[in-house]
């Protein structure tokens, strides 16, 4: 490393001890993120001999059936993310100063997080499946004649992902909103703002950074959907997401270079999504968010 770069990166401020204690996390980053990423990138750019370097990408994008997985994933990820965030925001907002039975409610919300994807899917199948309690109940009371199909299709994946990702989003937003100085709201009230005006003009802009982060995280989780899409969806049809395509290429066709190229395409699509969200947020609200608590 040249001396000027050494200074520009601020390494002259790091003493040996700091570097030493940084080592485990750097090692982790290199071993489990950077190395696999670049390994995959190189792999994806190593097609069969005699083909151009972008050949694996070309094959995926030229194939209608393969290419459609991008759209199928987006079609799941964006609506579910919107649904999760739009339900979480008002709920977290109303609970920001605490409500009755808050602990009980929070416990119920955390439960799905701790149970894991497969158990949630089992639960949804048992409750909403063709012979599930819900359908049986609707038939018993004569509302419908044939079972309504909630599972093994698009709806099934939406329900499963919602149950899995809603608690994350809600709890994160709840933490964020309760962190906003309550006197900001009080002063708006005294200046003449009605509750709805306070929400739209004061609290929502202050929540915007938190909502953006929550949106990004839920989007990433939704975009990588794999077990839910298989267990509750139609993995050979309308919910064949890009993760499933990558899995099949890797472990059914044992073609690692092509699988890697699919993973790269998935990463790029995700990045485009995240950049779009952050750009939108920057256009909507400017200025700082949470704290100007000096002194």
């Amino acid at each position, binding site marked *: 490393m040249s001396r000027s770069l050494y200074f520009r990166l601020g390494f002259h401020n790091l003493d040996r001890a700091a570097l030493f204690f940084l080592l485990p996390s750097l090692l982790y980053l290199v071993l489990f993120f950077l190395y696999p990423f670049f390994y995959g990138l190189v792999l994806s750019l190593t097609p069969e001999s005699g083909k151009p370097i972008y050949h694996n990408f070309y094959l995926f994008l030229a194939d209608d059936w393969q290419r459609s997985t991008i759209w199928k994933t987006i079609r799941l990820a964006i609506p579910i993310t919107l649904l999760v965030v739009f339900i979480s925001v008002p709920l977290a907002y109303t609970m920001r100063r605490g409500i009755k039975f808050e602990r009980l409610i929070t416990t119920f919300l955390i439960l799905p997080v701790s149970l894991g994807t497969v158990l949630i899917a089992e639960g949804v199948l048992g409750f909403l499946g063709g012979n599930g309690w819900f359908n049986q109940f609707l038939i018993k009371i004569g509302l419908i004649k044939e079972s309504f199909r909630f599972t093994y299709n698009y709806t099934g994946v939406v329900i499963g992902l919602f149950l899995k990702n809603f608690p994350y989003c809600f709890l994160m937003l709840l933490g964020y909103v309760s962190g906003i100085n309550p006197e900001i709201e009080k*002063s*708006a*009230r005294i200046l003449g703002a009605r509750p709805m005006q306070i929400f739209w003009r004061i609290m929502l802009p202050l929540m915007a950074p938190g909502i953006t982060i929550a949106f990004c995280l839920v989007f990433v989780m939704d975009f990588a959907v794999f077990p839910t899409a298989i267990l509750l969806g139609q993995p050979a049809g309308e919910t064949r997401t890009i993760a499933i395509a990558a899995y099949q290429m890797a472990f059914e066709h044992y073609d690692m270079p092509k699988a890697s190229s699919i993973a790269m395409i998935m990463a790029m699509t995700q990045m485009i999504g995240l950049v779009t969200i952050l750009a939108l947020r920057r256009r909507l609200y400017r200025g700082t968010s949470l704290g*100007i608590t000096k002194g």
Partner: protein
Amino acid sequence: MERAAIGHIEVQITKRFGKKTVLDNFTLNVKGREFITLLGPSGCGKTTALNCIAGLVPLSEGKIFVDGERLDTIPPEKRGIGMVFQNYALFPHMTVFKNISFGLELQKKPLDEVKSRVNEVLSLIRLQGFGDRFPGQLSGGQQQRVAIARALAPRPKLLLLDEPLSNLDAKLRLDMRGELKNLHRELGLTSIYVTHDQCEALSLSDRIAVIHEGMIQQVGTPKEIYEKPANLFVADFMGCENFFTLKVRAIESDGKTALLEQDGFRLRLSNIPQPITIGHEVTLTIRPDDIQVTHAPSLGSQVQVKEEQNTTSGVVHVVQYLGKENDIEIFLENNKKIRVRSPEKVERGDKVTLYFNPEKIIFIPKG
């Protein structure tokens, strides 16, 4: 700036949180254009009282009137009150201009009026040209001034201030105190100020209400509160740290001069403001600055003449250097601890003579 409404306030409220009574039949009359301070230790209910007036906390019982009109039945956003909070509570995502114009825009004022009023209050707080800044770019003192401007812009009938200076450092606090006093003189706006700082209360207020455990202990001018505390709590809170309970031993023929004594500590006082009977106890107090302390004279010295009346001797226990003077803890011969503030140079273990100026002694009414 044009004068706001008169703003005569009558408050009579009780507030309970669950089983705990925070304000017990709290009754206060504030004259129009008056600056009144609610003074008390933390948890005494003063902030709750302010929040009740603002409408941020519902009353358990009672009524609030402003200029004869019922206030407590109106939602807070329609009360026409200005409020300033301890931590400024500015809207961090809005510029200074937008912060101040927020209340005016909600009143649907025309744009040019909004602009002229914002500029008016900005010059009032001497922050012209700061309209485009964000609160995060201002110092603590500037932020608090913006908060005051924001409260004043809609021309409220009443200004509530909840410990507005507590977050500022000592020097800035003193400057802001002056500015607040100036603002009140210029605008003549009825103001209710909450603080736990007796200096702030004494320097700013027309009147002070001392509060303890949800009850008003005494209401009066700063001079009355300082010189004639109504009870032990007020006296203690206003910085009288030395309390004595003495028995009346003898009364002289004028009926007002008496010899008081307890455990060998003796005072001869005239002009006792309360009826006295031999054998009864009286409670009195004296501020640390009103006790004179001198090194105990060696035997045979001339100064001893003075020893006769209202003096006693003691031993220095702790000395804290405060610059202009020392804060000295002294144990009297009867082991009672006395706090004195004096420029006299003393050290731990020194024998000293204390003189209690009878004119500075404050009698505390019974009950």
